């Protein structure tokens, strides 16, 4: 009762709302419920248009629209503090976005990532695997200035084959800046560059408030880094502009070591790294989450992809300044060895499929 006291004063105004989940009430039924709350010691005046305090009764009628109970399963009563922003998921939907790629993140998840990154106005947010820039959009929506790099020349320039069904080539309004302009967020666009995330070209300094990224898992986008001039047998792709060979030998575990070192070096203290880690579920254990002496693990949330694979949204916070020896910690510390298992993610992802097919075709001999 003491908690309610400040909101019951005679010189305050208030209003009560009735909200139901999985049931519709008539206006009459709602008014009846409000009247039933007369026992509450409100001394202030009711103001339906612009009250200082809004109180809600929330009636929960379960999750099954085909079996709606007579009485609510639960009733909650509370004071409104803030709105969520779920409408952003629709307004930023990938379906309406000008420029998408094969693996563009859905709007809801990309906003959750920005939240994990604690992105705020005037931050600088960076994505080292920026692709079509989908992950930059929520940060820009929250007032941060955004930049990114990608090793793929065509994607960064908005060229090449389209990802949309029924569309062959990318159109003239498809590039990352155009995506931001679509939402009126152009002013937050800093730059994107063609660059190899494993060979960063930043001068020494703490530039980024958050690094929010979805690295390639090697399934629908290949894991790549620039290669050697010696590796120019047939089939090695070369960057269209500079003809630098782009090899396909970037081991997943090396990619995460590079990413964590990069974050430790370039994040401000207190800054956040948010990224997806692909996981082969039968072998998953918490120990395989990549670690770094400068970064503290804040959260680790699973999203199932298939019966035997998942990805985990990892959030880390920089808690210690980077020193040169920190980049070698993965070599010295045994705890960093388990995530070598990530390297075979691609084989395991596909092996589950082939093993199942083989099982169905042959009776077991054992």
């Amino acid at each position: 009762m003491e908690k309610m006291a400040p909101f019951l004063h005679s010189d305050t105004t208030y209003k009560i709302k009735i909200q139901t989940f999985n049931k519709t009430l008539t206006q009459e039924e709602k008014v009846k419920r409000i009247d039933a709350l007369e026992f509450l010691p409100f001394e202030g005046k009711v103001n339906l248009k612009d009250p200082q305090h809004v109180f809600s009764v929330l009636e929960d009628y379960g999750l099954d629209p085909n079996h709606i109970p007579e009485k609510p399963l639960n009733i909650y009563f509370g004071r409104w503090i803030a709105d969520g922003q779920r409408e952003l998921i629709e307004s930023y939907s990938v379906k309406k976005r000008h420029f998408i790629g094969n693996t563009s993140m859905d709007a809801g998840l990309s906003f959750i990532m920005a939240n994990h990154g604690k992105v705020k106005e005037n931050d600088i947010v960076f994505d080292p695997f920026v692709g079509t820039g989908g992950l930059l959009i929520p940060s820009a929506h929250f007032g941060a200035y955004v930049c990114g790099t990608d090793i793929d020349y065509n994607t960064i320039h908005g060229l090449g084959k389209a990802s949309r069904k029924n569309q062959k080539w990318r159109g003239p309004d498809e590039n990352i800046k155009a995506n931001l302009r679509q939402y009126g967020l152009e002013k937050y666009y800093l730059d994107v560059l063609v660059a190899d995330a494993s060979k960063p070209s930043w001068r020494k300094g703490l530039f980024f408030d958050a690094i929010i990224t979805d690295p390639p898992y090697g399934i629908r986008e290949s894991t790549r880094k620039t290669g050697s001039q010696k590796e120019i047998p047939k089939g090695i792709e070369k960057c269209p502009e500079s003809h630098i060979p782009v090899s396909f030998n970037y081991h997943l575990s090396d990619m995460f070591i590079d990413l964590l070192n990069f974050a430790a070096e370039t994040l401000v203290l207190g800054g956040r790294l948010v990224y997806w880690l692909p996981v082969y579920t039968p072998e998953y254990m918490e120990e395989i989450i990549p670690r770094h002496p400068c970064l503290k693990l804040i959260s680790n949330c699973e999203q199932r992809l298939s019966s035997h694979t998942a990805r985990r949204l990892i959030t880390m916070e920089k808690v210690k300044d980077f020193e040169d020896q920190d980049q070698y910690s993965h070599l010295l510390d045994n705890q960093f060895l388990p995530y070598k298992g990530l390297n075979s993610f691609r084989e395991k992802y596909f092996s589950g499929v082939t093993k199942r097919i083989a099982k169905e075709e042959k009776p077991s001999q054992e």
Partner: protein
Amino acid sequence: MRAQAGMKLLTHNLLSSHVRGVGPRGFPLRIQATEIRVSPVDFNPDFVTRMIPKMEWAALVEAAESLGHLSELPRQLEEGYEKDEDFLRKVHHVLLEVEVVEGTLQCPESGRVFPISRGIPNMLLSDEEAAS
């Protein structure tokens, strides 16, 4: 309509060559611009104030000058700049409104050239060229 873009001087101020052996002498990259664009961006004094301490000031002045857009930027940072709106507007202009659409960035130590096309710098180096 393709959204036109150019490399901003704020970004240029953070970039360094990572050619093997150059270390900190890979900064700042020398800009050769064949096409420059000036594009208005909403002025945000809080953002500009936050960015100034992160900038290598001499390199910023040098880059702006090399593009012919020094815009009365002082060569030395003076105390109390946070409250000087005129000054902040000049910095805003140089950091965010002057863009290199076509040109090159050159490593001052090794001479290696990184192209900028359609406003996007290409920083790729092969294994042999890059620092280990």
